[in-house]
């Protein structure tokens, strides 16, 4: 009796056990981030001038454009590739599906710098990609693939692909094949069944994966800065540049704030749209 009573009392709370993690996050996550954001309105002098400059000038507008454009493009391309892959993974025989899975996980878990480095080498003027394009006659002279947004897009698509495939696979696998059989008997050709049934049923996965890829791309630093070069800066690189090279903490903080707001807003949207449906 006594032990049961203590067991129950012990269960009632439990907040204490979360305390170490809470304190860690408060001290080294919440406080520093809030302080950084505060600097955006206090540094170098109080006021909103950092935001005015950031959102008002065309130079900075270019950075926002790059960020959103590349993120959008990466999201679109990954979605286009990921849908057939996730679909195939969901219905393929065990062995090929297992192999494909292993390849996806390997690419996902390989060190980020390794992957980026590989693309830097492959996309060089004398790199293998240019040579392949030349040999199949698509281009005559090598084209510039690094230090611009093409390189960034290719590298980011490579990195983001697993994050699109995996949630989409989860959604498609849960669709009852009998629903597609019903569509076929109803007279829908493969194309009609794809457009009218499979795609709409997979749409939550596409939207959720897409949102995730988009949000991750917005704040990505390593790949854009190695493959994009300084001329084609994206938001994360801009923040680093302001803070590290220019010691302009106010402007860095303002840019960080914008990135944070967009990210958290999209994250909240994601939770609202997709969490309740998944738990139901």
């Amino acid at each position, binding site marked *: 009796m006594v032990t049961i009573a203590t067991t129950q009392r012990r269960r009632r709370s*439990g907040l204490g056990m979360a305390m170490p993690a809470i304190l860690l996050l408060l001290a080294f996550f919440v406080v*520093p981030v809030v302080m950084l954001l505060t600097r955006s309105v206090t540094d170098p002098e109080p006021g909103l001038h950092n935001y005015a400059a950031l959102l008002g000038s065309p130079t900075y507008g270019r950075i926002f454009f790059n960020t959103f454009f590349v993120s959008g493009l990466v999201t679109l391309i990954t979605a286009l590739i990921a849908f057939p892959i996730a679909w*195939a993974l969901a219905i393929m025989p065990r062995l090929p599906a297992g192999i494909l899975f292993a390849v996806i996980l*390997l690419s996902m878990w390989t060190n980020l710098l390794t992957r980026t480095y590989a693309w830097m080498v492959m996309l*060089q003027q004398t790199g293998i990609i240019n040579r392949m394009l030349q040999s199949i006659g698509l281009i005559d002279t090598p084209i510039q693939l690094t230090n611009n947004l093409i390189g960034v897009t290719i590298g980011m698509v490579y990195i983001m692909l697993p994050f699109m495939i995996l949630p989409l696979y989860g959604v498609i696998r849960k669709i009852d094949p009998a629903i597609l059989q019903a569509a076929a008997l109803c007279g829908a050709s493969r194309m009609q069944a794809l457009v009218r049934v499979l795609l709409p049923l997979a749409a939550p996965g596409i939207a959720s994966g897409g949102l995730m890829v988009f949000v991750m791309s917005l*704040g990505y*630093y390593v790949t854009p800065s190695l493959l994009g070069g300084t001329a084609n800066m994206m938001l994360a690189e801009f923040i680093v540049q302001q803070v590290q090279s220019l010691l302009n903490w106010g402007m860095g903080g303002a840019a960080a704030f914008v990135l944070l707001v967009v990210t958290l807003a999209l994250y909240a949207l994601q939770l609202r749209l997709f969490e309740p449906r998944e738990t139901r």
Partner: protein
Amino acid sequence: MLLDFGKLGSWKWILIAICTLTALFLLLPIVFIIALSFGSSRWLAFPPPGWTLRWYEELFADPRWIQSALTSAKIAIIVTILSVALGLLASFALVRGRFRGRAVLRAFFLTPMVLPVVILAVALYAGFLRLGINGTLTGFVIAHLIVALPFSIINISAALETFDPAIEDAAVLCGASPWEARYRVTLPAISHGLFSAAIFSFLISWDEVVLAIFMASPTLQTLPVRVWTTLRQDLTPVIAAVSTLFVVLTIVLMVATALIRKGTSK
């Protein structure tokens, strides 16, 4: 019958083609870099004019590479231990706790995963400069721990959720103290979750670049920081050698995970 592989007709071949091309796309950089690490061309020509172990020799001859690898390992191990410990406690609170706002707390614990890491890096950089722990092991560990913790919590709480607390109660009724029951009954039952948490935490710390760039000092650098600084100067094949070792490590960890999964699912 789009969800019946055998009844896809010609579309089956389209899917197979897309899968094959994508698999090649995903494998290409990895295979390519492994090949180049054994190639003799200083300029990374492909196919390599000859084969050599020179880049590995250069790598192992340079004490700075060894030093930063050791630093990385040390940080990653400390982070793994702390991340699993804190994650275990936090997961117990999230899954078994009976207080209000658990959903909010859960979301709070996961935010470092969603927040662009560059923001955290810059913010911690400023904070650590003030505290004077920038460029120290402590700084590294704290920074990596913050991004590793969410993954640890996700894995452990998922395992804990599938474990019926009644079994723990049964152990208590058998005479075990509550803590003993947890240690002897619950922990072994969720060991696969703890293991995944450890693997994730280790890999995240080991691979972390952005935070590390800001935490590093000229005397204390992790392996990714060395790779990063080297990469910004030139694309030396030594990096290909390092990369190959990274890939090998990843494969080893993946196989270990797969084996353990198989072991626990039986």
